[in-house]
């Protein structure tokens, strides 16, 4: 019993994740990024419960107001509170970012692990990845939005249908970098002794992959995850900005920016808030990813 306690205490000091945290702490930009991203997430998640105005609460009498105490960011052309809309938009944008990232991570890890582990499938899967990498992604995304918007809207409702469409299309067009990195790491880990040991005691392929390989490729996956969120948020905003994203009355950051551009001459300050929200979120996630990469791989620190 005492042995066990001592052993766990010993493990604690040698814990890899503690090392990573110590390393991460020293990267000021990454820490700031993590804090800002956490604040943004908390604000958009809890804000709408506290804030008295609804994102779609129209009040035509107070339309086009500038910043005031009641409406810190002003109101839009229908008298909707801009702060409430930014928070509601952030919910959608960040949810889309997270879900699309999870999907692309799942696809990328699946293809990367299968390609790296099973030699027979390797060249075929990597050719497939290369083919996907040479697709013109933004035009294809726009085409997908155009073609599948109607059928999905009718079967799942306009908001849910669009959400599924955007998440799936971003997911299936952004898994390739993850797959490549994971495959490279799996190829290296597969040759190590502990895999040989696992196989020699009769471990099956599934067991080896889940127990031994996946935990060891976790760090590149985590770095891909942060960059994936940033990428997905930008892509969703770009689609909404081009008018091919969510329906008009459903706020997302890109859609709010697009709406604000119509009033560029009269109310130029309106484009600022959604744009700032997108940029700040993406910037903080990128810093977070940078710090995470440095912390997880000490060899490339400071690059």
């Amino acid at each position: 019993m005492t042995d066990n306690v001592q052993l766990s205490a010993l493990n604690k000091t040698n814990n890899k994740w503690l090392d990573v945290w110590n390393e991460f702490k020293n990267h000021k930009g990454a820490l700031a990024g993590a804090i800002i991203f956490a604040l943004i997430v908390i604000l958009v998640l809890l804000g709408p419960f506290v804030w008295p105005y609804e994102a779609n609460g129209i009040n035509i009498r107070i339309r086009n107001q500038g910043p005031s105490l009641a409406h810190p960011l002003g109101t839009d052309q229908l008298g909707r509170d801009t702060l409430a809309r930014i928070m509601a938009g952030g919910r959608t944008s960040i949810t889309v970012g997270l879900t699309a990232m999870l999907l692309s991570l799942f696809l990328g890890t699946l293809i990367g692990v299968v390609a790296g582990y099973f030699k027979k499938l390797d060249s075929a899967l990597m050719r497939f990845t290369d083919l996907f990498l040479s697709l013109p992604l933004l035009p294809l995304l726009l085409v997908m939005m155009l073609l599948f918007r109607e059928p999905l809207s009718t079967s799942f409702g306009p908001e849910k249908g669009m959400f599924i469409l955007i998440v799936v299309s971003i997911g299936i067009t952004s898994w390739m970098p993850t797959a490549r990195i994971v495959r490279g790491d799996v190829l290296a880990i597969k040759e190590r002794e502990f895999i040989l040991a696992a196989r020699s005691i009769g471990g099956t392929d599934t067991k080896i992959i889940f127990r031994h390989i996946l935990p060891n490729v976790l760090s590149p996956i985590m770095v891909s995850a942060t960059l994936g969120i940033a990428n997905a948020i930008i892509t969703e905003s770009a689609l909404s900005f081009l008018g091919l994203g969510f329906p008009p009355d459903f706020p997302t950051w890109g859609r709010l920016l697009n709406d604000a551009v119509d009033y560029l001459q009269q109310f130029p300050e309106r484009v600022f808030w959604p744009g700032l929200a997108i940029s700040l979120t993406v910037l903080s996630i990128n810093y977070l990813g940078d710090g995470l990469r440095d912390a997880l791989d000490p060899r490339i620190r400071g690059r």
Partner: protein
Amino acid sequence: MITYIVRRLLLAIPTLLFIAACIFLLLNLAPNDPMAQVPMTIPPDVKEKMREALGLGQPLHVQFLKWVIQFFWVEPQVFFDYLFNTSFSEGKQRIFSWQTRSPVMDIVVQRLPQTLWVVGMSYIVGILIALPIGIYSAYRQYSVFDQVGTFVTMVGYSVPPFFSGVFVIVLFSVQLGWLPSVYDTLHEVVDWETFKYQFRQMIMPVMVLALQTTAQISRFMRSSMLDNLNQDYVRTARAKGLSEWTVVAIHVLRNSMIPVVTVIALGIPSIFGGAIITEQVFKVNGIGQQLINAIYANDLPTVQTITFMFAVLIVFFNLIADILYGILDPRIRYD
């Protein structure tokens, strides 16, 4: 090297065909009717004839084959005829836009100069800014310049063009009134005044696109320089008593440029993708805006052709990057 290039060229053909098939199937299998906009009063048999006139009556593989032949065989002939006044393409079916009823390639050729002018200029400007920043911030790692440079490139990397574009319009066109917010493509440069106007209207779109390029390339340049600065041959060069300039500009820089050059080549197609958004923001009527218009108008042949042209660009520049890498770095020869 030659065998390698030939092999890569041969491999590019199935890649392109696969991408063409992907785009074609995506567009044609989607539940989407190009006749949806036609009035209900038109009788069904007339409607059927209209479908056939658009080339929709035939089975899918015939449609695909026809499109491939038109794209790879007829359109180059038209181009050849235009260049040398021959008549190879006479009487051959070209790819027609449903929107304007004119050949897609003619519109593309009209639109392409604007895109190339803005995109090409922004890429060159971006590279010219990025390289010195990357080199100097690697040389003075952790200095104030490096810290500021890294932060600025990170910001440039994170701010999407549809915000930076709108932001500079608000700042320089709406508030200060210095620069025109809409790009006037009919504007012709004939004298100094018109040249100045052209310069003023190009600054914003070019700088917005260049910001993205700068951010990516200077980060890459910096890390590539850092890789080389700590190598043994640099110490040898210094020990020999070479001047600092010779060490950095000749020895280190030339070696660091190898991966950067390939990244520059690989980035060219993606800048066309970014141009889609920038063109929309600044109302440049280039090829990206044509694509968006065609998407809104449900004009499948145009969408298909332009999307495929983007794919050709990507495959072509991937090839260039691979070959450049082999030429620049003799250690990596793929024979």
